[in-house]
């Protein structure tokens, strides 16, 4: 192996530039320079380090032959393997199924017992997730309020207008399943399923805002086609036709919230949604 007599200048230069970059990083930090200076200096420092090391190793490579190392390819010779098996199975205590069975029982029991505390990760005893998912806190008489808590009159919405509402008195961030989108359309255009005629007030219809595909808010309303679209996977729902899905992967309609007005003319719910909100789940 022939080594260069003198230190290779290119390698030394690269290492010194690397040190300079590191110093630049420290200086940038002290001076409070921007992210570009910090990243540029430290990244540059590592880049010069990489170049120096690569150059160094290629100089070594140039003087070195290919090395050969033998590799054993077969399994352990049978005799040695048998000796290992014997060492494993020869015991001072007689091999007994009862003994091993008892040990197995103990280990399995400990393993099983260790699973119990995992139950604490789930909601309190007596809560059935299916029940929780199947219903929302909307009750008959709940006022519909905006995220700021303002109650809504049908006349607050122009035809073609929409607003997102929640039941009065509940934190919208905690009770996401109550998220509702109000849309006002021309009542003459409505073709709702049978029995829902009384759920609409002055052309204002209310649907769950959670897409029945993957639960994203159906945030995009196009008044010309009177369609709600979910920006996640582009499912499209027909507002005039009971929010029936007309495009995309959503498999069923957005549940509708039956509406009425109270004595002061504000919109209230007449009960819970027409079905479970959001996407279906696997034990429904």
């Amino acid at each position, binding site marked *: 192996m022939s080594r260069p007599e003198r230190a290779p200048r290119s390698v030394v230069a690269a290492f010194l530039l690397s040190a300079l970059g590191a110093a630049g990083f420290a200086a940038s930090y002290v001076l409070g320079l921007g992210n570009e200076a910090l990243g540029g200096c430290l990244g540059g420092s590592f880049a010069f380090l990489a170049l120096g090391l690569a150059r160094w190793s290629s100089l070594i490579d140039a003087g070195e032959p290919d090395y050969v190392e033998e590799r054993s390819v077969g399994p352990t010779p049978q005799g040695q393997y048998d000796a290992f098996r014997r060492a494993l199975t020869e015991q001072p205590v007689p091999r007994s199924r009862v003994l091993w069975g008892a040990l197995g029982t103990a280990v399995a029991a400990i393993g099983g017992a260790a699973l119990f505390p995992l139950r604490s990760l789930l909601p309190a005893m007596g809560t059935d997730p299916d029940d929780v998912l199947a219903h929302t806190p909307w009750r008959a008489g709940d006022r519909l309020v905006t995220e700021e808590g303002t109650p809504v009159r049908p006349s607050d919405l122009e035809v073609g207008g929409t607003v997102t509402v929640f039941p009065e008195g509940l934190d919208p961030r905690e009770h996401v399943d109550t998220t509702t989108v109000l849309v006002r359309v021309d009542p003459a255009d409505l073709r709702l399923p049978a029995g829902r005629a009384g759920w609409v007030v002055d052309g204002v219809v209310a649907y769950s805002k959670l897409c029945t595909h993957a639960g994203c808010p159906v945030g995009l309303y196009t008044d010309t086609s009177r369609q709600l679209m979910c920006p996640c996977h*582009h499912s499209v729902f027909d507002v005039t036709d009971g929010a029936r899905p007309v495009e995309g992967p959503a*498999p069923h309609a957005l549940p509708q919230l039956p509406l009425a007005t109270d004595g002061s003319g504000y919109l209230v719910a007449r009960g819970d949604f027409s079905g479970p909100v959001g996407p279906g789940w696997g034990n429904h």
Partner: protein
Amino acid sequence: MVSLLPRPRPMRKLDERLEFASTGRSVLAKVFPDHWSFMMGEIALYSFVFLVASGIYLTLFFEPSSAMEVYHGHYRPLEGQEVSAAYASSVRLSWDVRGGLLVRQAHHWAAHLFIGSIVLHLCRIFLTGAFRRPRELNWTIGVTMLILGIFNAYAGYSLPDDLLSGTGLRIFNSVAASVPVVGSWLSFLVFDGEFPGQEIIQRLYVLHVLLVPALLAVLITAHLAILIRQKHTHFPGPGRRPSNVVGSRVWPAYALRSLSLLAAVFAAVLLAGGLLQINPVWAWGDFDPATITAPSVADWYILWIEGALRLFPPVEFHVFGLLVPNQFWPGVVLPGLIFGGLYLWPWLDRRWTGDRETHHLTGSPRESPLRVAFASAMLTFLAVLLVAGSEELLVQWTGWTVAAVRNVLRVLVFVLPVVAGLLGWWLAESLRRSGLGHAIELGGKDLLAGLPRRRRADS
């Protein structure tokens, strides 16, 4: 009396206690084969090192809590607003902690590099047949690390509690809930009740910074231990046999080259972290369950599942009275099939090729047109799903409706992989028969020779 002998040097002192010199000498002389494609796994390893180092720094500033607090700091638009502690601390990390943005962005870029290099490493192993006996075990460990890597990147991306990541979590919740029989329990186990729950950020945090990295560290150790025990495969060449390894010695050539690669990985993620903005959480805003940004595009390693969710037709039905939700097929079954197929590949390959031999010399991809065809088809399938995951861009570009673009993609997702698979087979077969070095040298004659030969009726 003072000894006139030179004082023992620290290395010698250590050897007096551990007697490592003879083992150490054989370690230094260990031979590793040289090929550029063998560096992908090393890049993944060094990305992991950077992820751990930068991640530890980030944990010192990030607060994994959905408790509300008022933000005060340099990011003026958020000044005085009430947001979650997770979001506020992520914005503080980016705007108020000196050097914090660099570490945060470099950490995110390193995650891309980690998963990207694992995918390329997997492609190399797959195409050269290096997964075959005796390396099936290391293949399954590698696939496990890919899954853990994707999961952990997703968990990390979800921590800042911004609008994009909150939307991602909501989709994750829907997919978890779609599992038959146990769906709602599974979703409640992850989220501590109905979405969004109060605990999800804490739970993801523990998984992201402790459990998954620890698992990865154990698996990386096992992966490397098996590699050292079995010794690396090498390509055919003069003097190269199944019973030897030809290449560079660990010290000094290989070690210096590998350290150079480590420095290059650090350089790449730090330069990217300094110069290229990634996931500006302050611009997305904090998570508000009733709001959504459009377009919302996920990171590439998860985007193919998004694409599948978009393309899958609106089908749902009941089996034995239980609902099989729509999102179950693209969200659970598809990734299950892909990763399950990857796990089983060494045994499927063995069945189809009848090859049960031990291999230490691996070939060029052309030697197995079947694998080239399969890899081309699979990568094309995933590429179409990635495009579907960002179909907004295609809609803008073509001016077509979303529905039209989607219907075209629904056809292409089946047609293009078949075309790519056949082309891959053809190219590999032409190269194999011609014996040429590179695909670019192939002439018309070579390509004709690569076509499947018709059985001649007269013979």
